[in-house]
């Protein structure tokens, strides 16, 4: 249960480089959609999808806060949870920045108490309970990102969604392993 892969400093540095690439892709997507009424409508729909995604990221960030504050997570699980939360913060910053560049207004996070209620934080009694919640949310986010890819009008944003899904899969895989569960049987288990 405690044997998690703890990312090192090099991983954080590569994460920063990843953000820059995402930001470039988002900017490219915006420019490609800049002209005409149809493009504006496409932007509006894409902004709506990005805002739903941002809502998911806020939920993920707050779920990891609830887990960290529960006192149930022990090292190195706690360190990994904090690292995953940092990933979600990076996702949220990227999505909020893209929404603003496209003329939209990013949704704001709800209160921690609201997330605690919706996620039934009062039922978390063990480290495994916290990990199970995190696994469920990471899987949900993965499938949500994969599911909205066809709806994006901007190919650049679709690519960003795919990259965000890949991050969620990375989280899911490590958490699933920490719970001692086997890998899914067969290929393409996500998005199905």
């Amino acid at each position, binding site marked *: 249960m405690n044997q998690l892969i703890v990312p090192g400093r090099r991983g954080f540095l590569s994460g920063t480089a990843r953000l820059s690439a995402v930001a470039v892709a988002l900017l490219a997507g915006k420019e490609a959609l800049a002209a005409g009424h149809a493009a504006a409508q496409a932007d509006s729909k894409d902004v709506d*999808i990005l*805002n*739903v995604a941002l809502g*998911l990221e806020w939920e993920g960030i707050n779920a990891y806060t609830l887990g960290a504050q529960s006192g149930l997570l022990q090292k190195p699980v706690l360190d990994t949870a904090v690292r995953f939360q940092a990933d979600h913060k990076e996702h949220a910053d990227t999505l909020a920045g893209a929404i603003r560049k496209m003329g939209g207004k990013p949704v704001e996070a709800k209160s921690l108490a609201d997330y605690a209620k919706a996620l039934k934080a009062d039922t978390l009694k063990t480290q495994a309970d916290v990990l199970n919640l995190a696994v469920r949310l990471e899987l949900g986010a993965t499938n*949500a990102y994969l*599911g*909205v890819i066809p*709806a*994006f009008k901007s190919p650049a944003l679709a690519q960003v969604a795919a990259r965000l899904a890949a991050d969620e899969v990375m989280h899911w895989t490590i958490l699933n392993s920490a719970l001692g569960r086997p890998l899914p049987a067969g290929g393409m288990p996500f998005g199905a």
Partner: protein
Amino acid sequence: MKKSLPWACAVVLAAQASFSFGADAARGKQLYESRCIGCHSIEDNRAGPAHKGVFGRKAGMAKGFDYSPAVKSSRLIWNERTLDRWLANPEATIPGNKMGFAVPDALDRADLIEYLRTAK
């Protein structure tokens, strides 16, 4: 052969009368927990609205959820047919809504809808 024709028609009509014919709520629950749980739950509003009591409810009426103007002004009542249309193509069903997620497979939709029917 001629005598059996009315019976065949009756079977076809009965099947058409209900979208839930043969639908599997247990499989629908599995699909819900895989595909929908990222944004929705039965009991609580999350990125998407809570689904408890969705069947028979007017669109845009989950208590406390911040709907798009498009969904709020919609006159849809959620039933087998409207949910099937919505899940197949949300944007075509209510243009301007916020949901970018579709369920292209008709059998998947039928099973999900059968599960949502139980969410009372």
